[in-house]
């Protein structure tokens, strides 16, 4: 199978990472194509967060290479900046800036990183806020919003930087059940528009609905990957089977 280089969004090769003596990620190989939507799952502590945090260099890897959008991640601050501009990230705990309004949260990076005029940044921000269906909250502060609304703001904030790849780290796991749906809806919408997405989540419904591929990680390794139907109905590795049985039981 041959793929033109420009179609590859992320290429991870033999990537390894240690925390002190602890080997968190072992020989990770992963190629993500443009427009692919990948769901990553696995037991707690298996290294899912660490892996996607390596992609935008919130963590440093020690061996192997990560190439994002044709740029290899090294110590070079310039390249890190470039990659971070291309890659948006949404966290479990939203990490909105509580001292800024929703609008300011969204315009901050475009203004300071992309050096956009304020007016333009605000227009774009309002556009994305409408897209996540909370334009009317623009002048409130994060503390005044519900968890689901906050997470949607966090997504809008990332989108304002116009990233080509989005990373999600358990975006719904800190939310009450009623709010999970509103966030997933936004993510489904994004997926439908063809955004390249890597998403750590245990929302299996979401995985079935939008993912091209499901990756199962355990003890720092990618143990199995497959198309969702196949993955859920016919897991091959015993650890996957065990994990799925727990998850689906619950």
């Amino acid at each position, binding site marked *: 199978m041959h793929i033109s280089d420009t179609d590859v969004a992320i290429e991870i*090769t*033999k990537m390894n990472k240690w925390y002190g003596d602890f080997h968190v990620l072992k020989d990770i190989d992963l190629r993500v194509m443009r427009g692919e939507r990948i769901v990553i799952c696995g037991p707690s502590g298996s290294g899912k967060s660490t892996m996607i945090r390596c992609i935008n260099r919130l963590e440093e890897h020690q061996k192997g290479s990560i190439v994002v959008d044709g740029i290899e991640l090294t110590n*070079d*601050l*310039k*390249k890190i900046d470039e990659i971070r501009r291309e890659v948006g990230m949404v966290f479990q705990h939203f990490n909105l800036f509580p001292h800024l309004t929703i609008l300011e949260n969204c315009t901050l990076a475009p203004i300071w990183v992309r050096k956009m005029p304020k007016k333009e940044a605000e227009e774009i921000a309002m556009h994305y806020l409408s897209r996540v269906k909370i334009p009317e909250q623009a002048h409130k502060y994060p503390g005044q919003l519900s968890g689901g609304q906050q997470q949607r703001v966090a997504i809008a904030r990332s989108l304002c930087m116009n990233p080509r790849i989005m990373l999600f780290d358990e975006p719904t796991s800190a939310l009450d059940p009623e709010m999970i749906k509103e966030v997933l809806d936004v993510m489904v919408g994004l997926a439908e528009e063809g955004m390249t997405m890597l998403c750590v989540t245990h929302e299996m419904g979401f995985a079935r609905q939008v993912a091209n591929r499901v990756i199962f990680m355990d003890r720092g390794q990618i143990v199995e990957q497959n198309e969702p139907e196949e993955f859920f109905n016919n897991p091959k590795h015993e650890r996957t089977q065990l994990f799925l049985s727990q998850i689906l039981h619950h």
Partner: protein
Amino acid sequence: MEAHPPRTSLWNDPKARGIIFQALLVAVLSYLVFWIVRNTIGNLEKQNIASGFAFLDTTAGFGISQTLVSYSETSSYGRAILVGFFNTLLVAVVGIIAATILGFVIGIARLSNNWVISRLAYCYVEVIRNIPLLLQILFWYVAALRSLPSKREEPLSLFGLVDMNVFGLWGPKPIFGEGSSTAVIAFIAAIVITIFMRRWAHKRQDATGQQFPVGWTTLGLIVGLPLLALIVTGFPISFEWPVFVDTGPVFGRGFQLGVGLNIIPELVALTLALSIYTASFIAEIVRAGIQAISHGQTEASHALGLRHGPTLRLVIIPQALRVIIPPLTSQYLNLTKNSSLAVAIGYPDLVATGGTVLNQTGQAIEIIGIWMLVYLSLSLTTSGLMNWYNQRVALIER
């Protein structure tokens, strides 16, 4: 893949950048130090001042009003500074003990459900901590001096043990005669026995559940054993009482110099001011510490049938201590440092005696260096001790 680590410009590599920054900082700092040293040497040369610590051996020639180690006008400057150091230490230690006791009392009074008491404690805290310490030192000194009986008038007597006049406090001075070492040995023995007694009491309680009046026994042992030793050896410790003479030559009247124990009023005023001032801060720390332990803990303890005393001792205080100790440490440090204000009322502490030496010799750098070194080491020792204690308390917790 990792065969050729990609090249990056030094400037964009955060590690390299960090090293460059630090190297720059080191360079700037070293140059600054070099520059200062060069200027200083130049200035000193110009002014014909010899640097170095040789002056410490020169005869001081001035008197000091309170000396804990032997000192006379013919002693050296170094000795004078040492005298000052011990005087500082004395104030700091006495002040810390007094401030802690007073602070805990006020802090607990602040939480009293007696309205008058808690209000008084509140006023105390809010008045005292919002007035500069220097002012309070001056106040205690001036106000106390002005309102005390003069040297030759009948002194104020406190419980017949201690007399008070403008020359300070006068009390009996213990003289250790032949055989008093037995008492000292008995005292040490009492401490050792106490330790074993406590262990034994603990074990016995573990084994049988019976409680032993540890506190009272300790008190009895520590007071009683030396006393017993004294009685057996025929009371070799005598007390030299101050002598008050009210007739005779003018300068012979009043308390006789060198007889009895005299605490100079500067020391009294300074210690008083320091401990009263610091106690207001400690009180707040104690209050906050106790309040930080949720009410639920007290209730749970009461519900288990523990009375007020054991609740405090076993539940509240162990928890409050870990909240209290770190800020308490910094208050101790503050008190030690604030003792340097002694200079304002003529108490011969380190800064005062050092200042006199500085003035006689002009060795500014050396003297100020000594000051800073001494205070720094006092600070470090205190915080070291307190940290060690804090860790022990914290260990119990987790």
